[in-house]
């Protein structure tokens, strides 16, 4: 369980994290989603006490991270930036961390096997590929068998097999009842593993929701319908939980709260001819873009001034 209350981090004039509130619950994978520069990494660094908040607080299992007697048993974290001395072997790196908590050599061997690093455990970590470096970071995060696992952009630099492995690892950890908090700037990746989503942009929480709710909110289940008599169709479709939008003088209506099938059946019942009936497909990627379009820090030239 991670709880952030009015968490704020300012670097001089720039506010990286701006009064953020959220709770990450156990037993589920919570995705932490946002464009680059949204404050995800800064938030994660504050959770494990590497950065001190300018205001507000964040606790892990009810306490500040640094106040836990055995921090690696509470939270295992993989940070975005490499946190390894390149001159040390993977085994020695893990052993150095293990000694601080009196964790045994057997556990070090176990996490090395779990992350598939057996063959390179004796090699200097500086020679590792990006993917191997990520695996070593994950091995370090799992070392203390922590109740909460926090991974910053874990699939970066991994090959498809590695990506699949991460997905299974995350869902497996959550199924064991652990708190799993994973950041990403890729909505599609999150959609596959996350149960819950916290979307941030420019240091603020834009949405704290589930994947399904987010899609619905951004218009995922909208049906476009064109008919000869939009006014009458509007009347017969109306009902609780149904929203209908349409331009005056246009044949087209946009209906949410009813499926295309329902709309078609209702129209047939009332003898209204339909010219078009389409379920508007909003991908998660689009939902995410829609949500964060005003909060993206750097726009590419091909999408001019949408946010401006």
């Amino acid at each position, binding site marked *: 369980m991670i709880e952030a209350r009015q968490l704020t981090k300012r670097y001089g004039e720039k506010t990286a994290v701006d009064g953020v509130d959220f709770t990450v619950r156990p037993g589920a994978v919570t995705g932490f989603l946002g464009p680059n520069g949204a404050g995800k990494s800064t938030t994660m660094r504050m959770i494990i006490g590497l950065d001190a908040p300018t205001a507000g607080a964040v606790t892990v299992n009810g306490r500040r991270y640094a106040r836990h007697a055995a921090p690696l048993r509470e939270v295992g974290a993989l940070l975005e930036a490499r946190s390894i001395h390149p001159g040390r072997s993977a085994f020695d790196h893990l052993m150095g961390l293990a*000694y*601080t908590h009196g964790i045994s050599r057997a556990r070090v061997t176990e996490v090395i096997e779990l992350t598939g690093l057996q063959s390179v455990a004796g090699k200097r970590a500086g020679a590792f590929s990006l993917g191997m470096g990520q695996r070593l970071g994950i091995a370090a995060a799992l070392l203390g068998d922590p109740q909460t696992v926090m991974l910053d952009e874990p699939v970066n630099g991994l090959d498809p097999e590695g990506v699949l492995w991460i997905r299974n690892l995350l869902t497996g950890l959550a199924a064991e*009842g652990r708190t799993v908090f994973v950041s990403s700037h890729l909505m599609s990746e999150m959609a596959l593993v996350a149960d819950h989503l916290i979307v941030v942009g420019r240091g603020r929480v834009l949405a704290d929701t589930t994947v399904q709710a987010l899609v619905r909110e951004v218009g995922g289940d909208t049906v476009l319908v064109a008919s000869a008599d939009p006014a009458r169709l509007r009347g017969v479709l109306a009902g609780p939980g149904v929203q209908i939008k349409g331009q005056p003088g246009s044949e087209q209506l946009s209906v949410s709260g009813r499926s295309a099938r329902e709309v078609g059946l209702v129209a047939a019942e009332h003898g209204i001819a339909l010219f078009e009936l389409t379920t508007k497909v909003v991908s998660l990627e689009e939902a995410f873009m829609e949500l964060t379009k005003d909060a993206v820090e750097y726009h590419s030239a091909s999408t001019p001034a949408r946010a401006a």
Partner: protein
Amino acid sequence: MSIATENPAVPTVSLRPAPDGGNVTGRRVLRSEWAKLWSLRSTWITLGLGLLFLIGFGTIGVLRYKSMLTSGKPVDPDFADATAFSLAVFGVPFSMIALGVLGVLTTSGEYSTGMIRSTLAAVPRRLPVLWSKAAVYGVIVFVIGIVGAVAAFAISSGVLSGTAKAMSFSDDGVLRSVLGVGVYLALVGIIGVALGAVLRSTAGGISVLVGAFLLVPGLMSLLPKSWRDDLTPYLPSNAGESIFALHHTSGTLTAGWGLLVLLGWTVLALVGAAYRMMRSDA
């Protein structure tokens, strides 16, 4: 914490018997820093160099002196006050630089590589890491200093035995001075550790260390003579050298005062390191 009551949808976590390990303790952090230091190749190389400089330059110095004595020519004025001990410790400044640089690297290396994030995630109270690094490194350098000084003096007294300058370990002050070499190098090593943590940069840490011990003494000649005579003995380098000097002149501190002054510099550096470590984001 009862997860089941807060989130009924989630099955209760089966709390396995503590698989492994326990709380972070001072001893465990010491053990970790010890293991981390020895698991880097640069540690072995630099400690080896420190020992080699101590023994090697001492040996070269005494052999050179012996050849001057036996050649019958007048002794070089630089060597006029030489003793078997002063020749044996000829390599101390070189060894001091090597060991001080490694001290800087033990902390600055963690910042430059990013390792510090792993270290502080494991020990988020932070200060135990600084104390452990200083203690572990100080003890190792102390041992290297003693071993090197004993070896260098054994060689020196062996080479000069039978001459007018012959000395042995039983001579007045020799054991204390040998011990002093170990103490001096250990304190310089700890100052290096602290400088690395204050500046978080290898280049910066080494520059300040070399500047403080090698350049500042030279700059003292720019001061008016009366100031110079008052201040110079208290510089870290001069105070440090009086810890292991066999003979003290009017212009130098006694071994005890030298030790106190260098300890003061060490504490100052450590306080600065602790302040930076606690106040700045990692």
